[in-house]
């Protein structure tokens, strides 16, 4: 069997598995977030947390709860990392204050950018009791915000968006935890380690010495992918054999990182009472994913015809196709886990991963963040289409007026502003030139990749860039924080504005948002907005490299 057939079959199996699972999972999530009953364990949690699950929140309270919860998360994680030396299981792990702040913000914002190496930077205690916990709760926050926006679109009375604590707890107990448990056991069976042993030095067959790592990896690996987190237990992330031992675990990990984001359009359709609306968003996400997969795979396969086979930075057990598939999926979501080193990809392969993030991680995006980011683009699309044909722009019968489009535009502009400003400052000042591994266009791409990854809460890297300096740690942390919470507040404000409107009836003058034509416009707007914003920067980076 040729690599091409093998690669295409791998993609086919992945797509088939997602196609089968997204329907029941999407429908289930819609039920979870509209259920009027609470599970017993959830009631216990509400009692412990002392919140009233029966009360609902307006957008300001909802947003305040999101920010409060996340700020507490950052403070706790930062304290745990700074104190790791005196806590149990320290094992010599140490981190500077700026690295620790970067790491705390990184894991709470679902970015999982790592300025440290997992083997030496954090203790097993922090890995398990600190980082793993954020790997659970940060995607649940994204999920809650997405559900709040959908409620803003589909509710036609009242001004409340739901209760953040209820959405958070239900997302965890009814969606994320059960799948994470199954995923962890599957990965265990595949060879991912789960032990309490300290790293031990062994004498190898040919007489050398090697450290064999230990740790509670399987439990962290499953939620790392499922929660579109991406922070590796080890420095090499999902390229490390103890995180991703074989081609089957590799496929399982790609499935896990895509499954919730690709199921959420269904949830949206069911909650909207019009499944066609969900198909539209799914069609949009899938089209973009296939487009970017084609670009990255084509470029990597093309490079593989050279004498190095495109294998620098890739694991032999995966090969070129599954590495391109992983790279595309991890940058199409907010995951940022890697099974191969993106910096050693071909110019357009690495550039494709970069552009995937620059699109705003829409195909299908992170857990929750993907759906709300896609809905922002949908609102932009109905607005532009409305201008073109002279109709009142509306989505699900909600009018997109001045306030709505202003909030949408601001939310969309946060990320490009952060990326271009900080890349520009870093290059021109020049504050980061000594940290670059490569020179020329590839060096620019390294820096641009870092800020794009941070502002999009992705976390993958062109890892040759030495990011562990105070300036980079702090600016990247700022990008992660603003890239996460500025859009969240704007999205919730938008939801708060939409929820007070009654849904208008469909008339002959309504632009239908469930047709293939609309999907075409939808994709077009995403590509044009991302393309126009970043083309000049891309021309100096990956495009210049590809042409030279």
């Amino acid at each position, binding site marked *: 069997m040729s690599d091409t057939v093998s690669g295409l079959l791998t993609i086919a199996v992945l797509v088939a598995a997602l196609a089968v699972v997204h329907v029941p999972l999407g429908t289930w999530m819609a039920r979870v977030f509209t259920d009027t009953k609470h599970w017993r364990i959830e009631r216990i949690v509400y009692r412990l947390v002392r919140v009233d699950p029966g009360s609902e929140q307006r957008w300001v309270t909802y947003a305040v709860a999101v920010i409060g919860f996340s700020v507490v998360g950052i403070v706790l994680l930062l304290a745990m990392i700074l104190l790791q030396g005196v806590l149990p299981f320290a094992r010599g792990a140490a981190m500077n204050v700026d690295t620790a702040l970067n790491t705390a913000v990184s894991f709470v914002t679902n970015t999982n950018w790592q300025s440290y190496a997992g083997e030496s930077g954090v203790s097993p205690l922090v890995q398990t009791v600190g980082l793993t916990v954020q790997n659970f709760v940060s995607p649940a926050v994204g999920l809650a915000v997405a559900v709040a926006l959908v409620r803003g679109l589909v509710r036609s009375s009242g001004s409340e968006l739901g209760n953040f604590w209820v959405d958070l707890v239900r997302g965890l107990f009814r969606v994320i935890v059960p799948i994470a448990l199954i995923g962890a056991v599957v990965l265990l069976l595949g060879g991912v380690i789960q*032990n309490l042993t300290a790293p031990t030095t062994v004498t190898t067959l040919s007489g050398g010495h090697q450290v064999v790592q230990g740790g509670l990896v399987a439990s962290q690996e499953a939620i790392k992918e499922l929660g579109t987190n991406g922070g590796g237990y080890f420095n090499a992330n999902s390229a490390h054999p103890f995180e991703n031992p074989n081609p089957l675990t590799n496929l399982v990990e790609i499935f896990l990182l895509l499954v919730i984001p690709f199921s959420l359009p269904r949830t949206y359709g069911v909650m909207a009472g019009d499944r066609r609306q969900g198909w539209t968003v799914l069609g949009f996400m899938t089209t973009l994913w296939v487009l970017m997969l084609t670009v990255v795979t084509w470029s990597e396969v093309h490079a593989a015809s050279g004498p190095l086979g495109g294998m620098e*930075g890739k694991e032999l057990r995966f090969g070129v196709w599954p590495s391109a598939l992983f790279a595309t999926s991890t940058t199409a979501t907010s995951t940022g886990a890697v099974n191969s080193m993106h910096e050693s990809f071909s110019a357009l392969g690495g550039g494709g991963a970069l552009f995937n993030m620059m699109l705003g991680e829409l195909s299908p995006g992170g857990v929750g963040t993907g759906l709300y980011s896609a809905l922002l683009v949908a609102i932009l699309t109905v607005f532009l289409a409305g201008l073109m044909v002279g109709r009142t722009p509306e989505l699900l019968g909600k009018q997109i007026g001045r306030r709505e489009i202003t909030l949408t535009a601001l939310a969309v502009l946060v990320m490009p502003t952060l990326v271009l400003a900080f890349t520009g400052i870093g290059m021109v000042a020049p504050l980061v030139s000594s940290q670059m591994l490569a020179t020329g266009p590839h060096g620019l791409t390294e820096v641009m990749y870092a800020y794009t990854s941070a502002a999009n809460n992705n976390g993958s890297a062109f890892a040759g860039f030495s990011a562990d300096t105070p300036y980079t740690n702090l600016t990247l942390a700022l990008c992660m924080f603003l890239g996460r919470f500025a859009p969240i507040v704007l999205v919730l404000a938008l939801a708060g504005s939409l929820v007070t409107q009654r849904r208008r009836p469909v008339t002959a003058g309504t632009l239908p948002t469930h047709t293939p034509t609309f999907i075409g416009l939808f994709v077009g707007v995403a590509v044009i907005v991302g393309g126009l914003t970043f083309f000049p920067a891309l021309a100096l980076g990956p495009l210049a490299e590809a042409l030279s």
Partner: protein
Amino acid sequence: MNSTLNAFVKQSWAGLRAMLVFTVLFGLLYPAIVWGVGQVVARDQSTGSLVSVDGTVVGSSLVGQQWTGAQWFWGRPSASAYSGDTSGGSNLSGSALSEEVAKRASAVGLDPTSAPADALTASGSGLDPDISPAYAESQVARVAGARGLPVQQVADLVAAHTKGRVAGFLGEPRVNVLELNLALDRLVASRPG
């Protein structure tokens, strides 16, 4: 504004209590459950698929090692020399990569224009346990000579240790270097005389 601040304080206290509950559930209980399941259903995997010779652990079948000496099959180049306490790739590209590849080729005495790609490229982890069947086959004559074994016998050993794609289509055909070298040692030990 004042009410927003009050709400922030109130919600943050709830957030603190929630984080404590979640830390117990997801930071302690969840990993413990997965660990317990591993002890019952996947004991060998959860400890790291360790390989022992005469009761002494010599490594993990999942993790590649540094091989020195003509009598061993060699693995791929590694950015971390297979040390195990750090992992990662070279992150090189372009001309810097070409220069590095030339060094790697001369270190193992290979012609960079004709050698198998995996013999010249470092993996993403620096711990790749596998090599391609082509790279293994290209080492057969050297290893057989150093071990005083018939070439055909070593070639047969490589063939026996070549794994196809998983389920016929997933991943690449490959040879696990540690397992191959262990089999080689056993072969030598079992030879009469």
